[in-house]
């Protein structure tokens, strides 16, 4: 596997990285864990003239911090760090659980949260969790920072709200209230999600007060299954309710198709895994 030639840059500060992005514009690509970008380059599907390697920024962007109501996760945190973080495990477990479903141990040791989100693979795992957790994404540009809600971040096939010249530096995850679960159907070849459903449910005395459902793998971008959420909120939770609410998991969505899963099968899996995620999340509430 032989990528086209490229210039390699190894900035040691965020400003330096932003400067390189400003200088090279569309010719530059950011390299974090590299698990998506490097294979694409080896197949010559991606041919950046400049590769800006962010590993020198680990000191600044690799952290998982308690900020009261929010857990701040640096964009260069690895899947493994997120999966095994005690802080996330106790206060925002959906993200930690989801990270454990990504790739294998080798991938999780190198792949990063920021890289995965910014790449926006429609079959990536994190979008489901980020959406259900109602996390915010912090983008740093030359002109300053801005925060984008998860629902606004994923815009289509490998497309996000990040502007050219911006770097995703942090994900801000609200401390989770209620129970959560991530349910995934693995593609047997790639290990990516044919469908992945993340659910958070909060409630007392059997009544659902709040429900958030994020779905990945089914559409061209991760999405919130708001019809499912509405069907549950204010209702008394039951297995039947979860099942009927889950029927809406792919409502209004144009499902992906590939040789392994047609649109109707994918939609079916979305419904099944939504029901499973709702049920498991409620049990943990």
């Amino acid at each position: 596997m032989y990528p086209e030639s490229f210039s390699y840059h190894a900035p040691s500060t965020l400003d330096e990285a932003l400067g390189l992005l400003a200088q090279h514009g569309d010719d530059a690509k950011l390299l974090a864990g590299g698990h998506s970008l490097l294979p694409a380059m080896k197949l010559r599907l991606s041919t950046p003239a400049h590769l800006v390697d962010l590993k020198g920024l680990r000191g600044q962007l690799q952290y998982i911090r308690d900020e009261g109501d929010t857990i701040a996760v640096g964009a260069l945190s690895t899947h493994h760090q997120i999966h095994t973080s005690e802080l996330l495990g106790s206060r925002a477990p959906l993200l930690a659980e989801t990270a454990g479903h990504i790739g294998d141990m080798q991938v999780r040791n190198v792949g990063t949260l920021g890289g995965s989100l910014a790449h926006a693979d429609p079959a990536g795992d994190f979008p489901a969790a980020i959406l259900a957790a109602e996390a915010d994404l912090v983008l740093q540009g030359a002109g300053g920072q801005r925060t984008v809600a998860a629902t606004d971040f994923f815009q289509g096939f490998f497309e996000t709200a990040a502007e050219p010249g911006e770097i995703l530096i942090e994900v801000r995850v609200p401390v989770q209230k209620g129970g959560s679960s991530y349910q995934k159907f693995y593609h047997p070849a790639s290990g990516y999600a044919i469908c992945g459903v993340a659910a958070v449910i909060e409630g007392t005395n059997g009544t659902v007060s709040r429900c958030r459902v994020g779905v990945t793998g089914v559409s061209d971008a991760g999405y919130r299954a708001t019809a499912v959420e509405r069907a549950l909120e204010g209702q008394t939770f039951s297995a039947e309710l979860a099942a009927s609410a889950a029927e809406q998991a792919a409502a209004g969505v144009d499902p992906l198709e590939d040789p392994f899963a047609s649109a109707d099968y994918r939609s079916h899996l979305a419904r099944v895994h939504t029901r499973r995620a709702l049920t498991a999340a409620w049990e943990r509430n």
Partner: protein
Amino acid sequence: MDKGFVGQAVKRKEDPRFLTGTGSYVDDLNLAGQVHAAMVRSPFAHADIRSIDPSKALALPGVVAVIVGQDLVDAGINGLPVGWLLDGLKTPDHPSIAVGRARHVGEIVAAVIAEDRYLAEDAAGLVEVDYGTLPSVADVSDALKPGAPTVHDDAPGNICFEWSIGDKDATDAAFAEAAQTVSLTLRNQRLVANAIEPRASLAQFNAGTEEYTLYTTSQNPHVHRLLLAAFILGIPEHKLRVISPDIGGGFGSKIFNYPEEVIVLHAARKLKRPVKWTAKRSESFLSDSQGRDHATEAELAVDGSGRVTGLRVKTLAAMGAYLTTFAPAVPTYLYGTLMSGQYALPNIYCEVTGVFSHTVPVDAYRGAGRPEATFLVERIMDRMAQTLGEDPAEFRRKNFIGKDQFPYQTPVALSYDSGDYEPALDRALEMVDYRQFRQDQAEARRQGRYLGLGLSSYIEACGLAPSAVVGSLGAQAGQWESSLVRVAPTGIIEVFTGSHSHGQGHETAFAQIVADELGVELDAIEIVHGDTGKVPFGWGTYGSRSAAVGGSAVVTAVRKVRDKAQKIAAHLLEAREEDLEYVSGQFQVKGSPDQAVSFGDIALQAHLAHNYPEDLEPGLEASAFYDPSNFVYPFGTHIAVVEVSPETGATKLLRYVAVDDCGPLINPLIVAGQVHGGIAQGAGQALLEHAVYESDGQFLTGSYLDYAVPRAEHLPSFETDHTFTPSPHNPLGVKGIGEAGTIASSAAVANAVIDALSPFGITHLDMPLSSQRVWRAIRDAQPAAAAD
């Protein structure tokens, strides 16, 4: 010998170098002045090549040459030959680089040679090819339809061959008299071989001696040399040395002659520099010969007592766009001849049509024809048992060839020399606890869980093969094997074998055989293979032939060495030969073990010849050319247990029991490895693997993102055992085990899934039994099931 090496689970001698990264694969080799090749491949399944403009590529500094098809024609280089001929076989020209027209996605259109591989890839992207796309066809059934796009003008209707075996009239009569018949329409899907090491070739040309050296990924370097020298390049055979060093798996895909080998040889001569090419994984998907791909209709007949009386089979077999080396043999003599399975099936008729389509060529892939036959026979046996309401194990048992019926002449050419099928079935049923399973299955169904158990009582004909027999069937090759055993003055024993190890562990298993024959340690033995400059000749490794044929050659040669050593010993001990016995590495006078001479001393004396028999030549070496008198017929029963999720259609393989009979085991550890790997590949076909083409020939599963191979997480821990029925006709009594797991397992797993789905009224589904296919079948069947 009290306790020999044969039969011991000796750790493999070759593994330390593989495990420590010190093996030497083709891509590890680099020669001074070497340049690199990259291939320009057709993105279209069928297209005229109107023009090729290499100027931009050649303008790139460091690009040495761009080679097109006409260059090879002008150099007098022929197309790739076919090594197995059938009556009426169409053999269209198979150029190494397309001339004028490309016939499958991935066919080579030009080759770029440059100072490094990255540059070669850059330049390949700059070669401008003007294609005129043409209508194309991928599926075998579509390719036979009137008006289908034609792959080769000299193969009208896309028919490559029409072949049959068995007695049609007698079989038709059996069906006319049958008490019950069942039919089955199935697709045995196309697969990619997926050797872990991609193919690679490195060619060197010595302008002074006009000798070529080709380092290449080959399962049979002498076959490569023969075809490349005599048929393709038209050079004297001794001017080409083929070296196949450490090789990371073949599964058949490295038997064949490939275009890239021709290209690097031509380029090395033209440029007078070594030329190297290593496949990218994406090229492996598009250029390694693929496997299986049958569309079959079959019928089975039984009499009033439920004994099978007739089998009729009609198969369309995909050949791809070109014939590779042994392609015509696979769906014919390696397929139709296996239709009797383990059963006393008096009437069989099998027709096969070989079909060209605009796809990658199809040839032998682990099992080669025999998995396809076994899948059909074992699937239709299950289907009949289900139809008759008989237990599938007992239905098989009732129809087994009895152990007193051997040798057993089948109606499809083969004569099974030995077998005893019931003990393997019984042991497998015992291991899986069959009765208990059926109770558990019934209980699980009451809970809405769907467990299934599938049997596969397989036979294979391997140990290829009696040369005269295969010659009469169309092989353009002999199928004997050679060995040369050479003892050095120090007593070190070099064994040169025409078999080739690319994962099989010959360096250990053959050394175990020799060590026992000579009573020496394994360290005193070196197994040499894979180099036409060292090994006198050989037909290579495929068809589970290395132990049965290659091993027989080794043991025959080493016994000749021992016989000569005995003559020398008799001289040194001043005793008569017949008064000597060989014990623990020394000849001694019977009854007086202190009068002895060691093998090492004999070896030294054979070379010094100072104190030596007058009528004996010095030296201590012998060769043997072993031609088997029959195939060997390993058999066994495999049982798979699965659970199917009715909600997602996902299948989990819960247990896998394999009882194989490959005769005595030379090395149980290696046998277990072969069985495990084989089961994984067969289970992979049953559940996961599928090389998918669009109807127009675009290839949709060209990477591991889309092509699913089984991983550890998909498989249970296998439970294996053996019965032991030696082959009556080879000196070791051994039979092959390299393909058995693959031959047996796809049917066992598929039968298990169908068994699990039987409450839904589902009687057959094609492989792969992917979750989507199973889910859809359940969904479509449920109204019918609910109506029950």
